[in-house]
């Protein structure tokens, strides 16, 4: 997806991961599915939740929470799979992302978007390209291409674990819930 389309469409889908609210541009979003049976793939990284059957195609599903260094998603009636289309190595890839709940579609003008929080690491510039304040809440705008380049994510996850990345909000989450260590 090129930048032109991103700037043209000013609608954003917001969703919750734990306490935090994130948003992505709707041009990336193909579908919002209710929770489906996920077939786990053995010996895969923990954040790769498994695959689902999306109208005849096999769609990988990512546990977004694990990717961001939070505890694995616990399924509730609000849990959704947001199907997104992202660019990966010059290829368009569809991927399902688990989110705790879908919030709303927001219309945001470019002028409303604030620069990302000053947290002094790659993390903000890489993943979050802006923040918006809506009803006294801060919503982080995600750059999905960056989020889903696998190596990028795992490195950030490791950095978070090692404490190299200092994000106030994130730290709280990590402190609160112990990061589940991957099995043997």
């Amino acid at each position, binding site marked *: 997806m090129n930048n032109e389309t991103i700037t043209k469409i000013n609608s954003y889908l917001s969703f919750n991961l734990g306490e935090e609210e994130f948003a992505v541009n709707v041009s990336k979003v193909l579908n919002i599915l209710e929770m489906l*049976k996920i*077939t*786990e*793939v*053995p*010996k*895969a990284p923990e954040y*790769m939740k498994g*695959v*689902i*059957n999306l109208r*005849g*195609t*096999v*769609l*990988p599903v*990512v546990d977004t929470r694990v990717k961001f260094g939070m505890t694995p998603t616990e399924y509730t009636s609000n849990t959704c799979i947001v199907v997104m289309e992202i660019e*990966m*190595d010059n*290829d368009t*890839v*569809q*991927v399902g992302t688990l989110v705790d709940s879908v919030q709303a579609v927001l219309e945001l003008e470019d002028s409303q978007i604030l620069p990302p929080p000053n947290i002094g690491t790659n993390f903000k510039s890489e993943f979050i390209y802006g923040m918006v304040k809506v009803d006294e809440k801060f919503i982080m705008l995600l750059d999905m291409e960056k989020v*889903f380049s*696998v190596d990028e994510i795992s490195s950030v996850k490791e950095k978070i674990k090692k404490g190299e990345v200092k994000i106030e909000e994130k730290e709280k989450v990590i402190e609160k819930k112990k990061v589940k260590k991957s*099995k*043997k």
Partner: protein
Amino acid sequence: MDKFRNKFIEEATDNIHDLEDALLLIENDPEDKELIERIFRAMHSLKGGGAMFGFDSLSEFTHHLETLYDLVREGKYKITKKLLDVTLASVDHMKALLANDDLDSADLRTIHTDLSLQIRKLIDKENEEKQQLIVDEPQTDKSKVKSYYIYFEPDIDIFSDGTNPLFLLDELHTIGECKVFAHFNKVPEIEKIDITKCYTYWEILIATNEDVNTISDVFIFVEDQCKLEINEVADFDITENDNIIDQVSKLTEERTDVGVSEIQSIIKKITLSEKRIEQIEETIKKKGPLPSVKENVISSIRVSSGKLDQLMNLVSELVTTQARLSLFAEQSGDSELAAIAENVQKLSRQLRDNAFDIVLVPIETMLTRFQRLVRDLSKELNKDVVFIAEGADTELDKTIIESLTDPLLHILRNSIDHGIESAEIRKKLGKPEQGKIILKAFYSGANVHIQIHDDGAGIDPEKIKDKAINKGIINKDTSLTKKEILDLVFLPGFSTAENVTGVSGRGVGMDVVKRKLIEVRGETELDSEINVGTTLTIKLPLTLSIIDGLLVKIAHNYYVMPLSVVNKINAVDHKNVVNKYNNLIVLDGEQIPFYYLREEFDLPEGEQEREQVIVVRYDDKEIGLVVDEVVGEYQAVLKSLGKMYKKQEIISGATILGDGTVALVMDTNKIISRFSQAKLNV
């Protein structure tokens, strides 16, 4: 217009390929008229198409080549190595022109003028020769040629007035093709010879398009000093017919003079028998269709590969839908529906097989490039190498073929450069001077094997080991089997060639080859014997998209194993497969190592009493894989797990079951090799 241009480029690429193919074939059989025609045809369509679509340089360039081959076609020019070299170089240049017709790079322009000049030269040389031929052979118009029999016996005193009969014979030679038979039987014994007398007389066969008068004019001044007979014996050139000449010369040796009637009867006899042979040959030709005839019939059509992919997708969809129908029919208990479902299953299976047939391509299609490489490279390196391909009709998925070409080219390059020794060394070692590279392709179970064997120097395991130690790849004390040592060459940054040549030896070779082959799920195996040769075997999966599988269940997930690797299925007691120290189970009196998949997949231990062991082939061994339950046979449409699961080796894909759930397709080879390694490392 661009669309047409693209179409032309596509077609021209085919034409060039065909041209190259024919040129390589004609090297072995320079007389083959069919091949010359094929070459000419390809050039002609390139020229015509090129001009039509604005490839002016290409068109003009091909025009010169065509002129040259026109001469070859008319039999005025022989196929020589020089000619082929120039032509092959031109073919390469044509490829370049196709991509860049405007000649805007200086290199290209130099090549262009250089080659054009060479072709020009070849044509000019030909013209010179032709002119010379005209001087030698005035009778070009063969249709009017008649043959005459001349009996010429000069008077014994003919020398007395200064006539030399030999000059007369020389003069005859200028009129037409002559066969002269001299008779010496009247020559007396040596002491009686009077050197002023002429004892010799001649019988002459002459083929000419001049009439009798011209011939008799030769003898005009000796008319009354000799016996002269001139008779027409045939209305064609008998001097060209070896049979007739042979018979006549035999007769003249036996007898003093043959005479016109005798010669006429010989000619009659021989032409009759020859005509009969010709007739027989003609009927054979009529009955047995020639390969050329077959070539002209449209036996294949051009379909874009995109359409084929689409066909495969549709077939896959159909198979998936059919699985749903079968499931539904079974559940409904309606016998009529079940019969229909069964029929659909049968049809879709046939359609699937048929579609595969279309998508599969014989290995032959890439052989031309290999032949060319071996030819060019062996010449460049001054080695004599012959390339032999066996099993060229073995078929593979076209996508696999595409990704195979580059690695195979690299392997061949290695074989020629490092494998085959120079002729002197080979001679010293007592090997035939000509090196041999054999490419062998064959089916083996659900795999296709491609072997590349050379009878060259082989790989010295000690050298590799030293090098690996030098480069810090392995430890000095590491003990490795020969196979393990040989596998080291596939590691990045490894090259054993002492001299880096322009061809190979930069250490970027074999690891890239291996990686490319892994992309198409190919496996490599290297075997080598010093001074005997090297064999590289590539194992490839037969097809990528639909497999016959065995559906099994582990915990709440379904898995599919390729049916082709499954040997047998046995039920076992749960207590026999968990917490075993040696992981061996006895089945039918044989000890079989096994893996408890629940444990390997990090799933909790099962609670069932009975579980199933599926015995699969792994290399030459049998290995058991324990699953919860066997569901049945299943035609699985392989779907990729996508980029995000690229590193997931043990699962080769997924398939969608009749009820919509996703089943994962196991790659049993990878599972076993991974788990056995994991065990060893602990």
